[in-house]
């Protein structure tokens, strides 16, 4: 618009100051993006949980198994459509540092239960026919440079010995948030080679007809197996994931605190800078008013400058955050994913603008209230 030369001219009056303020915004928003990514990584399980899935574990402790015979009993319960199971393997690949989740799964039901993981049919069929086969997530494959047909040795921990698997398939997730760091192999293969606890699974995942009936079914399932040597504890997938996250530590609180400190500081710095900038220009603002520019115009002028700085800084910060996530997980595999969704980017820019308005408001109001006669007298 016609007033842009005036706005831009003011911003470039002290180049260093504008650059530094834009930089401050960029830094703060970069952190915002980072914190959002960390939050997302920790609550990933909660975010992608299936609304129609329940998790059934042993009531005594999550490391206790459940009998395979429960599968049929579960299927008989009205409201349950599909049942699958899995065991945690916990093996070591080359070095204990190379941690990734390994699951012994039911090849008959895994795919239907978790449609968010997509494997090409021919790869899956090869896997089903190969006792020592494995399907790995594309994130995991990328991390170690694995390709189809590779033979992967994994050292068992609670079940000792070296186990070797053929990578028959690579899955990718439907959504960006889906975990592609998993390693699946045949449950039957595990059960064969086990010496103890044969015929036991780690946990069941159950698909129910009506998510609205989840609470009821949780009770029904646990009642079915109450007072047996293997009592169950059932939960929706979402709350199971949520309580897992809560054990990680009060991540939410930590993130909110850091975020709060950062934004408060940004607000202070920007507000102070804008106040100084306005103070320096009192004479000019008075002249504008003398020329016939309204008080409101001056208010909007100062606010627009503040908003522009915030916008540019915000976009820059978010862009840097996005680039950073593209470089991969800095903890090298400890987090299931390291991604900045568009909603966060939009949210970040919005927050930047909010800070821009808030920081610029006081100086803008001062400029608006400026009485020409007083200001000119000073000059």
């Amino acid at each position: 618009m016609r007033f842009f030369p005036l706005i831009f001219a003011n911003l470039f009056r002290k180049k260093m100051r504008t650059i530094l303020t834009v930089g401050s915004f960029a830094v703060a928003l970069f952190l915002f993006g980072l914190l959002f990514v960390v939050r997302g990584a920790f609550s990933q399980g909660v975010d992608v949980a299936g609304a129609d899935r329940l998790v059934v574990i042993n009531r005594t402790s999550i490391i206790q198994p459940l009998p395979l015979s429960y599968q049929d009993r579960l299927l008989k319960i009205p409201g349950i459509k599909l049942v699958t199971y899995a065991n945690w393997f916990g093996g070591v690949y080359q070095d204990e540092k190379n941690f990734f989740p390994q699951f012994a799964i039911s090849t008959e039901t895994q795919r239907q239960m978790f449609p968010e993981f997509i494997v090409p049919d021919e790869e899956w069929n090869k896997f089903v026919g190969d006792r020592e086969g494995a399907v790995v997530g594309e994130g995991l494959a990328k991390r170690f440079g694995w390709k189809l047909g590779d033979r992967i040795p994994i050292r068992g921990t609670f079940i000792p010995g070296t186990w070797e698997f053929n990578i028959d398939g690579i899955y990718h997730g439907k959504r960006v948030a889906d975990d592609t760091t998993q390693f699946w192999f045949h449950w039957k293969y595990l059960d064969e080679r086990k010496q103890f606890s044969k015929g036991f699974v780690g946990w069941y995942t159950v698909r129910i007809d009506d998510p609205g009936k989840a609470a009821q079914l949780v009770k029904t399932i646990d009642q079915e197996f109450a007072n047996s040597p293997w009592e169950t504890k059932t939960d929706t997938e979402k709350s199971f994931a949520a309580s897992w996250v809560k054990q990680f530590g009060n991540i939410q609180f930590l993130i909110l605190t850091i975020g709060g400190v950062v934004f408060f500081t940004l607000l202070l710095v920007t507000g102070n800078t804008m106040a100084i900038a306005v103070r320096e220009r009192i004479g000019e603002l008075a002249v504008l008013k003398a020329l016939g520019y309204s008080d409101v115009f001056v208010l909007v002028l100062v606010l627009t400058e503040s908003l522009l700085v915030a916008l540019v800084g915000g976009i820059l910060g978010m862009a840097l955050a996005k680039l950073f996530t593209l470089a991969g997980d800095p903890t090298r595999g400890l987090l299931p994913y390291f991604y900045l969704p568009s909603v966060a980017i939009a949210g970040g820019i919005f927050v930047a603008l909010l800070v821009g308005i808030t920081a610029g408001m006081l100086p803008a109001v001062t400029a608006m209230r400026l009485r020409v006669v007083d200001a000119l007298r000073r000059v």
Partner: protein
Amino acid sequence: MAIPVIYNMRSVKARWTSAVVAVLGIAGTVGVFIAMLSLARGFKATLTRSGSARNAMVRRAGSTSEMDSVIQLDQEKILEDAPGVARGTDGPAVSPEVVVIAPFPMRSTGTDANVQIRGVSAKAIQVHENVKIVAGRLFRPGLNELVVGKNATRSYTGLELGKTVRFGGGQWTIVGQFDSGGTAFDSEVWCDAAILNQVYHRPTNIYSSIAVRLTSADALNSFKDSLTSDPRLTLQAEREVDYYDKQSRVLTTLITVLGSIVAAVMGIGAVFGALNTMYSAVSERSREIATIRALGFGELAVITSFVIEALLISFVGGALGSIAVLPLNGLTTGAMNWQTFSHLAFAFRVTPLLMGLGIVFALVMGVAGGLPPAVRAARQPVASALRGL
């Protein structure tokens, strides 16, 4: 070289709003920096203190932690006669232990955390020297009784002395509380190993690990060698402190990596803020600076005095930040031990070293933020500055 420090001090007082802003910016950064490091340090300290230099932790060869190790009784018997094992009036200082997890509700969130349950014998108190019963008594063998670590009582609901809890399909009574000096054991619940095996449907006389007190810290090597050379044994041994050190690695790495990134980025932001403040200060005061120069103070003197001003501001900010996080010291929080997936309570550890580090960080930010503007101040042509152009 006369330095117009007095002028700088007075200027700071006069333009106090800008100074306050810079101070707060640096304080915030230093605070977060120290908080993250003390979090990592607290976690690590809890775990590393858990080991004794004189103790060895024996697990099945090839296992990654107590959670996935399985040792049979006969192996334990052979172990008792190994060289280096300390002997007391009760016999060899060897404690076979069963480690499982059980869910208990956390006080902080109300949801369940996986608490580590350790099935032991009375020998455990002997072998783990830093564990002391501070209330009640040890459980009696063969009974459903528990002794609870002091952090466990603090972190989870229902674990007070005299209470009963249900887990593993049975009722247990809490008969005692122990204090292990702020180590991982403080987050645990101990009971009789045989009862635990029963309740968890494990075969009897199967253990997760064996803790051994050695005759001396140096006896470790001969002890280890005897294990590996004995064909009847499939065990590995390491110093207890090393075992716990490895356990802490994952979470400590996570906190340190993420925390460092956050602190570095915040540091850059703080430097930007400081630069902005100092540049503005210089431009607001250009006429005064020129006057001082005209009076005879040289460029170096002006630069030095401005840097001192920046250092003063950043020192105050650093000190403020350090002191602000001091209340965190000793604050108990919890996190998951990624190796065992059990919940571990630990405390923030704010040490004088960390606080010192924070102040140094602040001073570095101060110099970075103060030097370029100081140079600009010194280089301004005196004549035009005096004229106010």
